[in-house]
């Protein structure tokens, strides 16, 4: 690796021990010898297997649940429904006061997405659990479903989630997160060109090689050890404590090793029900998603729809940006209100735009709840706004990289969400990229830097 020492020379130290060195990963000897212990690499005598009975409908009322046949199936030890869960209605971010509680560990009166957990079956073998799950009878009254954000926001659309009362998240700032900076109308009035485009994305599955799961083991003293591949140990500990109404001192979570996650393992889904099952049966319980469940049930990256309207001058300056962003949370919040909020701050991108107006909405639909995935809230935004940057450059007949040099943020610039830019290095990165790619850029752009503007 080559370090370009001419950049930020006054801030550079050369007595660093790690930066610029190739170091082996600390955990790689364990990986190549297969000694690394993933949660499922443990066997416990008498371990039970948990299988979920899931909703086959996008939206339905549950008229009745009959578990009698399943309970009689050979090998079945216990069947759990909503009434077995001490605090069945929860939401992950309640820990940081982002409510309301809007999701059920096991469905109560309704299911709101195809795949929602309804009944948990515990049996001596995976096969017995699977067979018994197929014998649970749930009588559903199918309800009209909304499967895209536009439909969800139409007046008279079916209500997805009664805990919210409308098909979008109500922020303390109202129906959306807002960024208001400068005067966008004035900016558009001055602009030489205006370009408005809409960008849409589909949900994306993280698809880690190791599926989501855990093993919960009673330790005999009304304490429970849960081996898990969660990416969020303390979220899991605290939410489990709420859901099971059990002090954290009774819960011992062991994790830290995940076979990939990419955000797909930050929700609190498998641990509370597995620990409850271990408590009610007194036996170790394994709850591991099948590959099918990992792909269909675990929360993907949210679908987004983003409209960007920009005012641009012939000389390359963007003078106004107006954004409306919609994040499809699916049926429940999980981490999406937070993801949508991140987008609001992010829409100007790494560019300094004097007039910005952004509204971002977190919308509920009868789709699989979405949640975290690498850079959620900003990655799709970046896709949209960088495509928009290329289109703007083309519109004014300018090289797309030179166009970005003109608009790049610099230290000291005020961002639209009122944070001063610090530690910017976009210009320097683009200079290196232009050199590495032999991209022709006018010499004056190589003279720019991210240091604060003069005057």
């Amino acid at each position: 690796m080559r370090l370009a020492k001419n950049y930020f020379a006054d801030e550079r130290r050369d007595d660093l021990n790690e930066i610029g060195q190739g170091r082996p990963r600390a955990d790689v000897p364990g990986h190549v010898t297969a000694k690394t212990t993933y949660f499922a690499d443990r066997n416990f005598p008498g371990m039970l297997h948990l299988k979920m009975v899931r909703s086959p409908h996008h939206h339905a009322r549950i008229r009745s649940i009959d578990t009698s046949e399943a309970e009689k199936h050979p090998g079945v030890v216990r069947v759990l429904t909503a009434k077995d869960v001490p605090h069945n209605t929860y939401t992950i971010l309640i820990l940081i006061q982002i409510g309301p509680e809007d999701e059920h560990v096991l469905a109560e009166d309704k299911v709101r997405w195809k795949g929602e957990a309804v009944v948990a079956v515990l049996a001596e073998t995976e096969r017995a659990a699977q067979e018994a799950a197929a014998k649970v009878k749930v009588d559903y009254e199918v309800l009209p479903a909304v499967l895209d954000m536009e439909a969800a926001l139409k007046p008279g659309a079916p209500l997805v989630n009664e805990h919210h009362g409308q098909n979008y998240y109500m922020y303390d700032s109202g129906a959306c997160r807002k960024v208001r900076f400068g005067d966008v109308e004035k900016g558009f009035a001055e602009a030489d060109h205006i370009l408005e485009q809409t960008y849409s994305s589909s949900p994306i599955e993280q698809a880690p090689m190791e599926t989501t799961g855990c093993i919960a083991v009673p330790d005999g003293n009304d304490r429970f050890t849960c081996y898990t591949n969660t990416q969020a140990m303390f979220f899991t500990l605290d939410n489990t404590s709420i859901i099971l109404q059990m002090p954290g001192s009774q819960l011992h979570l062991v994790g830290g090793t995940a076979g990939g996650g990419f955000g797909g393992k930050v929700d609190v889904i498998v641990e509370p029900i597995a620990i409850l099952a271990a408590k009610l049966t007194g036996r170790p319980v394994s709850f591991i998603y099948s590959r099918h469940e990992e792909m269909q049930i675990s929360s993907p990256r949210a679908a987004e729809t983003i409209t960007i309207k920009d005012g641009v001058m012939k000389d390359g300056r963007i003078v106004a940006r107006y954004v409306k962003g919609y994040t499809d949370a699916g049926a429940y919040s999980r981490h999406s209100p937070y993801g949508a909020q991140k987008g609001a701050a992010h829409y100007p991108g790494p560019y300094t735009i004097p007039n910005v107006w952004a509204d971002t909405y977190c919308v509920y639909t009868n789709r699989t709840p979405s949640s975290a995935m690498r850079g959620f809230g900003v990655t799709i935004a970046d896709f949209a706004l960088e495509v928009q940057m290329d289109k703007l450059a083309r519109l004014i007949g300018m090289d797309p990289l030179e166009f970005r040099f003109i608009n790049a943020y610099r230290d000291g610039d005020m961002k639209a969400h009122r944070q001063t830019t610090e530690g910017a290095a976009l210009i320097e990165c683009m200079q290196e990229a232009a050199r590495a790619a032999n991209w022709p850029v006018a010499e004056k752009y190589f003279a720019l830097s991210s240091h604060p503007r003069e005057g």
Partner: protein
Amino acid sequence: MAKVPVQFSLNGSEKAEFVDSGATLLAVLRGKAGDTSPKGGCHQGTCGACSVLIDGELRLSCLTLAETCEGAEITTTAGLAEAGVLHPLQRAFMDGFAAQCGFCTPGMLMAAKALLDRTPNPTREDVVEAISGNVCRCTGYEPIIQAILAAARANSHNAA
């Protein structure tokens, strides 16, 4: 359920197990024989994490019935290092950052070993073909391909 007796050698040591009829080799290795080095990423033959060598042939242990392994010689990543000395493939995966989360690694190593045992000086195309049944979601395939090629070079260097 009726149990079926099966004897096989696992990384050189003799094993005798009573297995459920229909149990997969993956389940028996992990749950009974105490070797959790093969991983279950899909249990349906699509990811390669469960790859093992059966009589020197690369096999998916999630699609292999344990009862068909009577008398077989089974090799897994747990048996790759000899007397604590890493196999050149293990060294190369370490040195080349070819394992990130590590979950695909045991399967990758088995696929690579199957290749090098047969083709000591593979081309890049040979390597790509050899690991085409193994999914990795973290590392990226390039460091893995490079590590396998490096291990082959180290091997032929040692042999010379």
